[in-house]
């Protein structure tokens, strides 16, 4: 089925359903359609997964909702398209989706030869290893000769080979198409190690194994995995809107604006807040949307910190630390470009 989708998407590129790539094509198309088509993960807790009521939720889903809110003032005008690692780029390139928000690592190749533009990073991750505690392994450096389960079609496969090569160790990879199959093989004892991004290892340890205490995540982080939403080349106006929708959420957290106090804050006389919340400055008009776009995003989706807590942090099942994803003021890397 997946390959069929990929083939269909490839065919779409071929026939050119996406139409031409004139300036503003995607922006205008989304506006005319009255709905954003957003590519997300098929189901990864905290990033994008349907909840028990079938409503999509997650930190990537919040990006889709934020962009839809900026455009239409309504976070529900989104059609979510679940994509696998293999067909996500083709779906974007062919025009099947307008925006790809699917825990995708930014790399040079993807930015250039794959014809994509990446929005600001919304999650900083890194690849790690999880092993059964009974193997008594304390460090990834002790994994010489191990059998490693890994999901195909990700940067993970390459990082894994690079790491073992750099440390002059051999290993046996067992590659699966779907994460569930790879995790099942790992917990079934087919592999000694499972490798993936640390956020996913945490989620797996929390929800996909019988006894979480029987597994340990090794201390090494072997790669940098900055996740960001992506749009295809050719429509700068659309790219700008996506970028600034995300900055709006980070800027809101920096200036202490939350979904709860945004109405009060809108009355503020602080010129920075006035520009952000659209009471002055015409920032929205410059992007081609309502001046109150950031206000609407914060009101419906919340600021970046709220989104993180709700989906990945203390308020969620995954319970990740903010770490690198904290604001720059608090020792993290999240930093909004000024609204002026």
């Amino acid at each position, binding site marked *: 089925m997946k*390959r069929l989708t*990929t*083939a269909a*998407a*490839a065919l779409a*590129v*071929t*026939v*050119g359903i*996406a139409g*031409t*790539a004139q300036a503003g094509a995607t922006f205008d198309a989304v506006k005319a359609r009255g709905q954003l088509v957003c590519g997300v993960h098929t189901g990864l807790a905290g990033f994008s997964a349907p909840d028990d009521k079938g409503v999509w939720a997650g930190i990537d889903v919040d990006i889709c909702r934020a962009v839809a809110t900026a455009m239409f003032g309504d976070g529900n005008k989104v059609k979510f398209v679940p994509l696998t*690692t*293999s067909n996500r*780029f*083709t779906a974007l*390139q062919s025009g099947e989706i307008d925006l790809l928000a699917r825990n995708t690592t930014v790399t040079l*190749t*993807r930015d*250039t*030869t*794959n*014809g994509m533009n990446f929005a600001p990073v919304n999650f900083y991750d890194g690849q790690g290893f999880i092993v059964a505690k009974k193997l008594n392994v304390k460090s990834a450096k002790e*994994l*010489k*000769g*191990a*059998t490693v*389960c890994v999901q*195909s*079609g*990700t940067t993970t*496969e*390459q990082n*894994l*080979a*690079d790491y*073992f*090569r750099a440390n002059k160790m051999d*290993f*046996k*990879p*067992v*590659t*699966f*198409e*779907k994460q569930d*199959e*790879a995790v099942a*093989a790992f917990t*079934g*004892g*087919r592999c*000694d190690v499972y490798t993936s991004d640390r956020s996913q290892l945490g989620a797996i340890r929390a929800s996909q194994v019988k006894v979480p205490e029987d597994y340990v995540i090794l201390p090494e982080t072997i790669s940098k995995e900055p996740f960001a939403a992506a749009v*295809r*080349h*050719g429509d700068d106006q659309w790219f700008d809107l996506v970028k600034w929708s995300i900055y709006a959420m980070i800027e809101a957290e920096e200036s202490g604006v939350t979904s709860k106090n945004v109405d009060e804050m809108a009355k503020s006389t602080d010129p920075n807040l006035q520009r952000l919340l659209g009471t002055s400055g015409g920032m929205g008009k410059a992007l081609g949307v309502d001046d109150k776009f950031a206000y609407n995003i914060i009101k419906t989706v919340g600021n970046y910190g709220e989104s993180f807590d709700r989906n990945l942090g203390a308020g969620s099942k995954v319970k990740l630390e903010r770490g690198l994803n904290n604001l720059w003021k608090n020792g993290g890397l999240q930093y909004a470009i000024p609204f002026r």
Partner: protein
Amino acid sequence: MSVRTTDRTSGVPWYNDEKTRGVLYQVALLALVLFAGWWLVTNTLVNLERRQISTGFSFLWREAGFAIAEQRIHFEPTDSYARALAVGLFNTLEVSAIGIVLATLLGTVVGVARLSSNWLVARFATAYVEVVRNIPLLLQLFFWYAFITQSLPSVREALHPVPGVYLSNRGLAVPVPEFNQGQAIALIGAAIGVVVSILVARWARRRQDATGQPFPTILATLGLVVVFTLVGWLAGGAHSALSIPHKEGFGFTGGAELSPEFAALLIGLTVYTAAFIAEIVRGGVLAVAYGQTEAAMALGLRPAQVMRLILLPQSLRVIVPPMTSQYLNLFKNSTLAIAIGFRDFVSVDDTVMNQTGQAIECIALIMAVYLTVSLLISLFMNWYNTKVALRGSTR
């Protein structure tokens, strides 16, 4: 001359002439197809160019950067994508070739068993066919894979029936002879044995055609190959060193390993396809009129001879064409390997597609490879079909 005059006088203009029209339609259709193809290709290139997506197959020579465990051709992450794909293709061909042979054997046995006069055997065969061919292959693969990895013990408690043989959920580790020059000479000996037996078989056939005296060709072939191999092995210094697997670190080193992924895929493909082949074989045997058997018996042939000389050659004419489709199905079904972690061509291509992002090229590669191999298989089967077909048959 007179005909032409009639044509002219009948007043039919050239564009209403049946023949001319036929040619015109064909030319128009061909032009349309060519135009559609040209339009698709140029449109794709223009669209890709506009979106600044790279095209072409030059990525094949870049460093792959990922590892493959299941390899018959040596492969390192520093090798090129092309070599990675070659490893995948080789794995696909290996599992398909072994699968085709095993499925044919199992299918023939089950097909004949369904015709057995033994009630129990016939019912067992029927149950097998009906159960296996009505469950989707993907589910069967998941079943076999889970069966192998979940029911076998872990590496630390690996089953150890004979010295040097280990069976665990990491697969089967067995000793293999260490390859050296001695073994190479033994292989050459085997090759000579094969050539000599082909010559002997030809001579035996000619003699039988001339004098009617039969010759035990199969036994002779076996004997010749074994003797020549043994002579080669002795001439090469009779090396008997074995590479024996032993536990080390996380798994085994030395010896040869049969992975659970390969085993599950091979078992799944064999069991599934054999059910269809069994039906084809049953149909083929039933297609030969019973009078043939009676006539052969009346001539004094023994039952084995009746099967080999009378029934089989005739039923093969019915069996071979549908068998070709089953072989092609097995080959194409091997692409399900990706679901259970076996590195076949599609699985490797999937990784390449993701690392390079060149989906159109990678899908084109899959289509080209499967089309080529499928056509080769049917070419071979068609050749074999003409060999077993009735001589002088007009159909």
